[in-house]
């Protein structure tokens, strides 16, 4: 197991390197640059050039890249072009809120999806099944911004039960219940999409397992139906689900962009949009690197999880 993990980690290095090269090229190919954006009418061309020189933007692309890479190996992700703060600090501030939001949403989504998926599979083609699959389709297809704005309108503006956005009421940042109140709507929006998806995965996967021979044997042994589904079938049905969850995690990290935007959630999504709009190269590179890292890490994590759920899988 341990040698396997180490080997995987070593393979990850060239992959990450490749990803950064591609990212660097794409980011720099985007028209516009961080200096010209903020130019005010009274700045001369010489001054613009001077600023570019100071930021190293006049160097050839490969020089800029190796400069960045060199700093990276020293643990330095550089300074943001728009706030001048160290990129590491900016990102660390945003990781917490995003994880809170997305992982909670994932948990809530799964708590809804797994039982509904089970019922739906066990009672296949029943009215309940049609209702569940129909609703899940709605959950998948409703756009996050639309649902977010709708919920804000109902619960924040009309009923005034919940706040319209933000992470905490100003000045009440350490109040736990205040935080929960702020989490409800965005988590609901994200969880709806997740639940909609997973109901279908769980249902499909369980249906496949339910038709297997060993379950017929179990029934023949006279086991209760509830034990068969929940103990024997579900465990096997969850294996593909774990893969999907594993692949989902990196996207949850960056994929809550729209929800974060609607609810002014101070997370990575907001940061990503802002740094794209201001062509903040160092921040963007760091965000991309982090996402790439998360993808690789989540894949590895999923593989390791496999060996726990399915004893037949062994890594050497």
């Amino acid at each position, binding site marked *: 197991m341990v040698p396997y993990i180490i080997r995987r980690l070593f393979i990850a290095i060239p992959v990450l390197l490749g990803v950064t090269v591609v990212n660097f090229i794409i980011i720099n190919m985007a028209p516009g640059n961080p200096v010209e954006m903020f130019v005010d009418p009274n700045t001369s061309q010489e001054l613009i050039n001077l600023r570019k020189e100071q930021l190293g933007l006049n160097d050839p692309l490969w020089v800029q890249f190796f400069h960045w890479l060199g700093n990276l190996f020293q643990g330095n992700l550089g300074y943001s072009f728009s706030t001048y703060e160290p990129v590491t600090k900016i990102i660390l501030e945003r990781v917490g809120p995003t994880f809170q939001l997305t992982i909670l949403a994932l948990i809530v989504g799964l708590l809804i999806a797994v039982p509904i998926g089970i019922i739906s599979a066990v009672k296949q083609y029943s009215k309940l099944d049609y209702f569940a699959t129909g609703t899940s389709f709605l959950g998948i297809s409703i756009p996050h911004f639309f649902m977010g704005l709708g919920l804000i309108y109902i619960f924040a503006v009309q009923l005034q039960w919940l706040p*319209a956005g933000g992470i905490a009421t100003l000045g009440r940042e350490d109040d736990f219940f205040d935080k929960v109140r702020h989490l409800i709507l965005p988590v609901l929006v994200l969880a709806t999409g997740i639940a909609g998806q997973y109901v279908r995965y769980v249902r499909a996967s369980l249906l496949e397992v339910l038709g297997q021979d060993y379950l017929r044997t179990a029934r023949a042994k006279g086991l209760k139906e509830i034990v068969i589904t929940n103990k024997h079938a579900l465990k096997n049905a969850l294996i593909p689900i774990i893969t999907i969850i594993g692949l989902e995690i990196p996207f949850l990290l960056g994929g809550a962009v729209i929800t974060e935007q609607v609810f002014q959630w101070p997370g990575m999504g907001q940061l990503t949009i802002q740094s794209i709009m201001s062509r903040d190269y160092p921040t963007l590179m760091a965000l991309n690197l982090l996402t790439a890292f998360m993808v690789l890490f989540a894949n590895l994590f999923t593989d390791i999880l496999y060996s726990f759920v399915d004893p037949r899988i062994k890594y050497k």
Partner: protein
Amino acid sequence: MKNVKIKFLTIFSLVLLFLSACSGADETSTASKEKGKESNGAGFRDTIVVGISNAVGALNPINAKDVGAMNIASILFDPFFEVDENTEFQFKLAESFETTDNQAFTMKINSKANWTDGKPITTEDVKFTFDTLANPAVQSTGLQTLNVIEGLDDKGHLAKGEKSVKGIEIVDDKTFIIHTKQPVDPNFLKANLSNSVSNIRTLPSHILKDKDPATLHQDPAMLKPTVSSGAYTLVDLKGETQVELKANPGYYRGAPKTEKLFFKVIPQANITAQLQTGEIDMNDPSIGAIAIQDIEKVKNMANVDIVDGKGYDYQEIYLNIKTLNDPKVRQAIAYAINRPQIVEKLLKGKAEIIDGPYTKLHPYFNKDIKNYDYDPKKAKKLIEESGWDKSKPIRINVPIGNQVREQASVIIAENLKAVGFNVQIQKFDFPTHMQKAGKHDFDIMFLGIPYQVDPDVSSYYSTNAVFNFSDYSNPEIDKLLSQGQLEPSPEKRKEIYNKVQEILHEDLPTLSLYSDYKLGAVSKKVKVGTPKQFGMFYNVQDWVIEK
């Protein structure tokens, strides 16, 4: 079997642990939370929240880049002057300004002014600030607009070998003299020493003097200044979501009456909703105006007063001189655009139509020039006369972000089609838009132009100037504009700029479309404090809000 379960449980609890760790890291410091509430006695709240709709960048007092950062930097670090809503100069850090020859300007720093650490603000700090601004190694907006000061080169940098700006003469602790190379209009100098125009905010030399100039902008003392001079000090800056400020009890213009001041970044569409729910107490019209389509809604809110704006900034189109080279074609475009419709229908009448670079309230606005009317017949006639090839496509570049402007661009494209032009709209994000602008890669392009107190427009119309996206070059305009810069007498300047406006009106390198009024709204609980585009925060220390 059991073993697997235990492993599962462990992983699950690890995830939970991780989650709770995250939530812990997020709690920001709110120090004076318990105390502040009682500070004003009964009846008043300790917090005022201002809604804005653009993210706030670095609050660097000499290099703030966006309007939000400039506004807030001016609350933290007092500029010498502040421009009020009538575009007049009010003293802030300065307490007097005198000149007899328009070449030596004697200024006094407010005698009570001190830094938040108790040290007085002196001419030493002023000198340090100018030296820092003039140092090319420092990341700042620099002194290019003030290159008329003695000892600076054209770019506003220190001459080679010089360590400090010769034109800043210290008389005593609180008095200094600014010497210029030639006489200048005193208002020109005042404008460049005031909040909305420049990034000249006095720095604390005793904190910063030993720092490396090249990395000054990354220094914590600049990013999160602990020693500042204004009514409020910085507690926390999260540019995309909120900025938290706390009162400076030793403020020389009076201790602030409200303990905490928040700027909350929310999408423009939510500003109205959050005013209604009371999550924000007012907006800042310069960076978070009420959306035009929300006017009726805001008027009907029982808890909010609406504050009308004035025409300061304006939207304009640049007409590429190289591709639309016949003035008749450019005039035809001006006649073809139905601006009254845009103002009435799109902007609900909350705007004014202008042609040139000054709005009606600008002191240098030329009243004698008649606007191009909406006259499609005349436009068609001019196109015929010019022999313009109607099949030739005209690219209209529009930056995304400003919805009203995007809608206006659609109307304008329809107007131009109606008189026979073959137009196509291309929308770009702002950095791309500006890059194309700089390369003159467009035929018509939209841009918002901020209000400038001083009438100098050379950066828009001089040959090869940075914002001369039309690629306009007229020797007569070049001459007039440099005369205007150097002319100390306001009356003579007025004549020069009247002439400039006449020529621009004929040549049409740009056509202003409309100047839209930035609307403000404020909670009725706020007893002192009004949303204004200019001078809103001049009396921020007096703001109060009822519970």
